[in-house]
């Protein structure tokens, strides 16, 4: 009979190997930006120039910058303008999103829509709460399910098993993951964020949007993304991998200071944005 600890260790080791083998490489532009930013002499203009060199990427970034996400009254026509108006972190986030857009679209039908829906809802909730970092929270909402993308693309058999189980037993995606796999998309998101050197402000929502009470660095961002996720599922906008609406974490609710009566104004603000964002479903 195999010693249980030995079996554990073997499983753990296998998991580690698979994990490293299966993570996609960081998009070139993201790595480049991280590198030049390490140099204190690098200016925002330098970054702008770097991004602008990739015209296809820049076009995607500008489309998102000009979309209903941000509701800008004036058109943003260049990367440098985007950097000035939206800020460095947001533009970086849009660059990252644009780089992985193809991956997201390929991974699972409806996941891109779910992601932009969650982004829009995150932005709306953040503004509604009077925060001045709504655009950054929005980016966190855009990227929160990257772990699912990796699962779908790099571990397709596992993905299929999970989806079948979700459908058969009406489970939440992460429930099926936890039952069938050693890990779930939140953990994969964590590994990916590490591997790609993403800031903790993005990594935390990716890792903890199902357990926002555990967030340490950005508990409000994580809570906002959590609530946004629930709202977008409830509306049926896009497909997050399962049909059922999950619970709202009481901790998240309290951290944000929301009331039940806040749902109506939030949803009313969200509705026109979602309608306008249907434009973004084909980002190319």
């Amino acid at each position: 009979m195999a010693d249980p600890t030995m079996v554990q260790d073997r499983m753990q080791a296998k998991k580690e190997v698979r994990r490293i083998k299966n993570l996609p490489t960081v998009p070139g532009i993201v790595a480049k930006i991280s590198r030049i930013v390490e140099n204190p002499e690098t200016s925002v203009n330098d970054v702008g120039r770097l991004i602008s060199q990739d015209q296809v990427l820049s076009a995607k970034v500008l489309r998102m910058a000009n979309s209903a996400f941000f509701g800008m009254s004036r058109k943003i026509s260049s990367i440098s303008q985007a950097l000035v108006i939206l800020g460095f972190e947001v533009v970086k986030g849009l660059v990252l999103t644009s780089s992985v857009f193809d991956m997201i679209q390929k991974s699972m039908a409806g996941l891109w829509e779910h992601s932009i829906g969650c982004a829009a809802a995150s932005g709306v909730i953040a503004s509604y709460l009077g925060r001045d970092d709504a655009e950054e929270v929005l980016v966190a909402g855009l990227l929160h399910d990257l772990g699912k993308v990796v699962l779908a693309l790099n571990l397709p058999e596992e993905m299929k098993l999970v989806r079948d189980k979700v459908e058969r037993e009406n489970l939440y995606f992460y429930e099926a993951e936890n039952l069938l796999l050693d890990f779930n998309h939140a953990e994969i998101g964590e590994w990916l964020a590490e591997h790609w050197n993403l800031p903790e402000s993005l990594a935390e929502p990716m890792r903890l949007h199902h357990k926002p009470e555990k967030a340490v660095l950005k508990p409000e961002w994580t809570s906002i993304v959590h609530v946004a996720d629930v709202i977008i599922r409830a509306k049926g906008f896009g497909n997050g991998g399962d049909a059922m609406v999950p619970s709202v974490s009481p901790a998240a609710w309290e951290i944000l200071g929301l009331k039940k009566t806040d749902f109506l104004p939030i949803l009313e603000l969200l509705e026109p944005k979602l309608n306008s964002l249907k434009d973004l479903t084909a980002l190319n």
Partner: protein
Amino acid sequence: MAKRVTVDKAKPGQILAEELARHDGVLLAKRGSEVTEGLLRMLRRQNIETLVIEEEERRTKEEIAAEHLANLARLDAVFARVEGEPVPMALKKTLAFMSGQERDKSLAVLELDEETGNGAEGGEGEGGEEGKESPEGGREVGSEGSVPGGAQGPKGPAGPREAPDGDKKKPRGGKKN
């Protein structure tokens, strides 16, 4: 049934019956995608004057009511696992309420349209903004740009395909010439 309309007459929510391309051939929107404010703005910037949309069947009272009931049924189904939890239930109630509002709005618009008569007046046709334009705009396609002198009710026979504005350039749509 498809209809070519000018960008000014197009409304968000309508569905593209043909794909839209820029003058240099770059695809702007796929066939079947929804018209949005953003798309219309972009078309204006690109100097694209017309687009082809799906002629929408006007919904009946029954259909409007049925859609609301379907929404309620969907909410029941997807919220099943959080029954009794106060915050999710509040979200569910709010969504149900908004669906009801949408239904009431659609029914009211329907009534108003029916009240002003079903095309017996026909209308000036050429770009006229007639009294029977529904206050909500949005979903009602049929009442706009009607045929001169024709019985062009929303349920009427398929309208003409040209843009109603005779003095504008001949519609070339969004495709490359």
